[in-house]
């Protein structure tokens, strides 16, 4: 137990902490700003050749079923839309490190990715069920919601059995046990990382409150979509680790989106369909490590 650590300590003392390429972060900020447009998105992305190459390969995957090959970023943004290109940039930017194993959470290779990608797809689906205007903005939030685990993993290595015993003894959720042990949970650590990356506020809040959306100080549908998507992804067993399903589900998130528990089975079935469709993105290609 080391409750004297600060958030800064945790993040600064963690070796091999992931980074998101500056060009991808700029694209995220640009698509969330009022002035963002196809040209500015393409020009930010063009600053990073490796990322651009990966985005173009994803744009030409079977998933989009385009009639002819997209050859440059401008064209990709026009054909797919700037938010889809933003999502592809984030997939390309995070895939190399989200696919690594996280020993502290008992997650094998690719399991963290399976969970993050499932939550991204699920959050987008829930937003469209709730008829929210910008369902595709939820994707990035879903993809990043657990980034704090990447930093906390090394601090939790070999501690899971003891943490689960503590959770059972004191009737705590897993994030409450993280707070008891380290002073912070993975949602707080993730939000701190997102702040350092200067990500837009709705995204930072989605990361910070994904386990406790009722605590979010602002009305933020992204938080609720990610919370429900996380629940769906855990229920379906996508990338479950040692923490399992030991988290709260706050049903009020459904109500805030005008949904209720009776839609759950339909949502779950549609969710698995969406994930299966999205797998076409990766069918013909292997995203190389950065």
């Amino acid at each position: 137990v080391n409750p004297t650590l600060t958030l800064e300590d945790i993040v600064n003392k963690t070796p091999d902490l992931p980074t998101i390429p500056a060009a991808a972060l700029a694209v995220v900020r640009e698509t969330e700003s009022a002035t963002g447009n196809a040209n500015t998105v393409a020009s930010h992305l063009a600053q990073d050749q490796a990322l651009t190459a990966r985005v173009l390969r994803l744009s030409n995957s079977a998933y989009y079923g385009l009639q002819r090959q997209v050859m440059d970023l401008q064209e990709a943004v026009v054909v797919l839309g700037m938010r889809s290109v933003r999502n592809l940039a984030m997939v390309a930017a995070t895939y190399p490190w989200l696919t690594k194993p996280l020993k502290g959470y008992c997650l094998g290779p690719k399991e963290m990715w399976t969970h993050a990608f499932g939550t991204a797809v699920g959050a987008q689906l829930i937003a469209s069920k709730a008829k929210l205007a910008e369902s595709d903005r939820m994707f990035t939030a879903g993809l990043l919601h657990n980034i704090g685990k990447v930093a906390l993993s090394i601090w939790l290595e070999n501690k899971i059995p003891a943490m689960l015993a503590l959770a059972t003894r004191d009737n705590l959720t897993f994030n409450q046990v993280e707070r008891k042990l380290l002073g912070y949970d993975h949602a707080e650590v993730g939000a701190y990382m997102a702040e350092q990356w200067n990500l837009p506020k709705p995204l930072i809040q989605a990361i910070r409150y994904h386990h406790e959306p009722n605590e979010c100080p602002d009305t933020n549908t992204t938080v609720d979509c990610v919370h429900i998507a996380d629940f769906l992804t855990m229920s379906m067993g996508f990338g479950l680790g040692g923490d399992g399903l030991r988290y709260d589900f706050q049903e009020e998130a459904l109500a805030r989106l005008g949904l209720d528990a009776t839609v759950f089975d339909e949502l779950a079935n549609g969710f698995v369909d969406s994930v299966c469709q999205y797998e076409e993105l990766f069918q013909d290609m292997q995203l190389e490590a950065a």
Partner: protein
Amino acid sequence: MVAARGERLTVCTQVVLNMGALQVVHQPTSMTCPGLGSCIGILASDPEAEVHGGVVVMLPSAPTPGAANPERFADTAIAKMIEQMVELGASAENIRAAIAGGACMFGTLSASPLDLGARNAVAVKQQLRKHGVTVLAEDIGGDHTRSIRYDSPTGQVTITNVIGEKPLCNLRDGGVA
């Protein structure tokens, strides 16, 4: 692998069943349903006929008759698995099954529609009973993930979770751990 003198070498097919996957085989097998959440892994065997089957269901019932992906739903998946096992020579009354999964989020109220794991468990047991299949043992519920594995040459069914591995039952001799 080299067999010691007199030892019979058994080559097993390795089957990994993810959500919504169904497989039936008429040969020695090692079947695993990994990383179960609220879904339920069902591993079944008619050891006399040497016919083995497995499926991972994610929801209690198909939304409509003839719905796509029947392997996802307890009612249609179990019917399909038993039918395929019988086609390969199994007798429904000889089939023994072991089931695992059905977890739910921490603090979910029982009887809530959100307790998908419990609803799946009820539906799976109901369907197996309807088809005359005996559930020999189960590892159901809680808020943790687990995997279930069946090794047909020995009949052993094993549960693995983050804490470790434990035997659940033996589908060949009917023993329960």
